[in-house]
């Protein structure tokens, strides 16, 4: 039947030859094709799970342990945030990143924080913490307290941290992608050597703003890496139901950009892919990096995720990026179980302390509603 053929054709290419993580291991070095000498190849590159060791990537044992801690902090922070949401300490929407932590941590270690920039969508707790935002300021923002990173004015979807060149935290799907291109444009204009990592989900690829930003970034040769965090569902819509072409890295062809596909279940794959793409960006070569990842929780706290099966979820949890790195650290004797338990205990305490901090941090004064709307300090607001 024609209909079936069409549906088949819409399945992601890699899925047909998937090896558990949704990404095929095409060759020993993980590359589908040889790269050019500057690391920039028109051919698309794959970074499958399990293809890299930390030594090969120039990472020390300390680095690997720090990456583990960085990922686990995000996980424990969000588990606690979910609990606090249930206790109605947190309002509005809460979109959890649980399952995707290798993407944020892998890139945080590949970039030069402070010199480079990052911008993401509303599922932003993980990236914020990975870049170095504190548990206190993150939790207090969720609580809507003045100790929060935006003094309680932004909430879950709008984390920002200027000292870290973290440009948010954006609530409109696709709305921030061109902003990321603009941040990269500014790096080039000022000649400061920095690059901008612009993160968004698979759902954003359907927005016109994505395609406009790709074209402008390529046209102006801005130092930007567009990171598509493909977690397979835009809210409840699976990618194959929403996209005629669900292999998102292929869109790069339309804009003459290099692209690659990395496994988001292995932090070393993400780290390697991000490092290569950042190197291209430093030469003013924008690119697309599609990272295949998975979120364990629903789209937001109100989503029971009935659009997927228990079996699918369980299968994905078996490839958990934190469990994978833990296994790696133990197998390589980079850490003992006791060491890792101690890290977990320390993080849990840090997160509990952030809850206490947030409880004790005052709510914003009512007068703050008129502050930070404008730079102008004597703006004549209409007041009652």
């Amino acid at each position, binding site marked *: 039947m024609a209909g079936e053929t069409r549906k088949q054709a819409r399945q992601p290419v890699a899925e047909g030859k998937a090896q558990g993580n949704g990404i095929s291991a095409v060759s020993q070095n993980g590359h589908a094709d040889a790269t050019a000498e500057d690391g920039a190849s028109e051919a698309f590159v794959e970074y499958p799970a399990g293809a890299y060791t930390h030594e090969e990537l120039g990472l020390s044992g300390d680095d690997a342990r720090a990456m583990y801690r960085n990922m686990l902090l995000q996980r424990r922070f969000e588990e606690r945030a979910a609990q606090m949401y249930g206790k109605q300490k947190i309002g509005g929407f809460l979109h959890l990143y649980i399952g995707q932590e290798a993407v944020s941590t892998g890139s945080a270690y590949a970039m030069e924080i402070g010199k480079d*920039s990052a*911008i993401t969508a509303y599922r932003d707790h993980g990236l914020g913490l990975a870049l170095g935002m504190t548990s206190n300021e993150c939790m207090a923002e969720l609580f809507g307290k003045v100790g*929060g*990173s*935006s*003094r*309680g*004015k*932004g909430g879950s979807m*709008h984390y*920002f*941290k*200027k000292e870290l060149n973290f*440009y*948010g*935290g*954006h*609530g*409109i799907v696709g*709305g*921030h*992608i*061109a*902003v*990321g*291109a*603009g*941040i*990269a*444009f*500014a*790096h080039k*204009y*000022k000649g400061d050597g920095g690059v*901008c990592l612009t993160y968004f989900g698979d759902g954003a690829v359907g927005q*016109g*703003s994505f395609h*406009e*930003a790709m*074209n*402008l970034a390529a*046209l*102006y040769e801005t130092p930007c890496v567009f990171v598509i965090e493909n977690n397979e569902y835009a809210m409840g819509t699976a990618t194959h139901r929403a996209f005629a072409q669900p292999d998102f890295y292929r869109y790069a062809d339309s804009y003459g950009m290099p692209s690659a596909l990395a496994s988001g279940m292995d932090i070393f794959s993400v780290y390697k892919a991000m490092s290569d793409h950042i190197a291209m960006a430093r030469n003013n070569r924008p690119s697309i990096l599609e990272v295949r990842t998975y979120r364990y929780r629903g789209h937001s706290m109100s989503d029971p995720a009935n659009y997927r099966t228990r079996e699918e979820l369980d299968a994905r949890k078996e490839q958990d990026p934190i469990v994978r790195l833990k296994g790696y650290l133990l197998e390589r004797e980079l850490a003992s179980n006791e060491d890792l338990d101690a890290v977990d205990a320390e993080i849990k305490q840090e997160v509990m302390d952030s809850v206490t901090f947030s409880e004790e941090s005052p709510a914003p004064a009512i007068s703050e509603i008129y*502050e*930070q*709307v*404008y*730079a*102008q300090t004597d*703006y*004549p*607001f*209409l007041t009652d």
Partner: protein
Amino acid sequence: MAVLQFREALRAAMVEEMERDENIFLIGEEVAEYNGAYKVSEGMLDRFGAGRVIDTPISESGFAGLGVGAAMAGLRPVVEFMTFNFSFVAFDQLVNNAAKIRYMSGGQYAVPIVFRGPNGAAGQLAATHNTAVESLYSYFPGLKVVAPSNPDDAKGLLKSAIRDDDPVIFLESESMYGLKGEVSDAADYLIPLGKARIAREGADVTLVAHQKSYWRALEAADRLAEDGYEAEVIDPRTIRPLDIDAIAASVRKTNRLVVVDESNPFASFSSEVACQVQERLFDWLDAPVLRVTAKDTPAPYAKNLIEYYMPRAEDIVAAAKKALYAR
């Protein structure tokens, strides 16, 4: 004082500011090699080079968003829309990103950006190319909206808008780019945002009007004078923040107000002024606040219909006489 066209005054403002601060750049459709769709940026590519006067594809959402990101990262973009009718495909960038990022970030990020270009009707262009946007954009806290009526104000206000640390919507007009007027050649000519200009003094009725409507209001004031009524004409120049104090001072003197605005009437600039004046000055008013606006319809194409659609001097005279209970 030099006599400049409106477009030359805008260009002078941009050139002076770009020479002063290298973080300022101009970006938009046809601004560079074509020398500007309306020749506002004529010669600027030669002067500043392609790194600072930048052509874009037809991609308003993309380049408006790029401007917002560049502004957050410390640059001061001037983004030209060929017309503000085209800004609607970039609406999210203006009303969510430019307007709200300072607030949502708790003041961490500023968005010092100017979006400029022609606004409102420009003849027989029919419904999609004849929208006046000041009422729309001034709805959003976080934005400032400027709408000058003459070359001198255009220069002084655009220089201030470029220096402002808040996002500014700067409204021009296709049909006014050739308008000539004396422009101050003071070294650093800045007109503060949020200050109205009393263009003509009078004690009988206040007319508030900006941009093209301002010229219709002056025409109406001349005709009213022939009938013995002295109208005071106030050009607000900035729509947000609005200099309501200047308007209120005038109404205390005349006790009558007519607001002229080429926006559609519903939930508009004119309804805002009427609301604020009745809240503040109910006891001072000797007549209801009246409005002369575009009609409550999309803009038509036919010559006779678009002429009727727009605020005309005769409509303003009629409204003023109604407020004066005159015949």
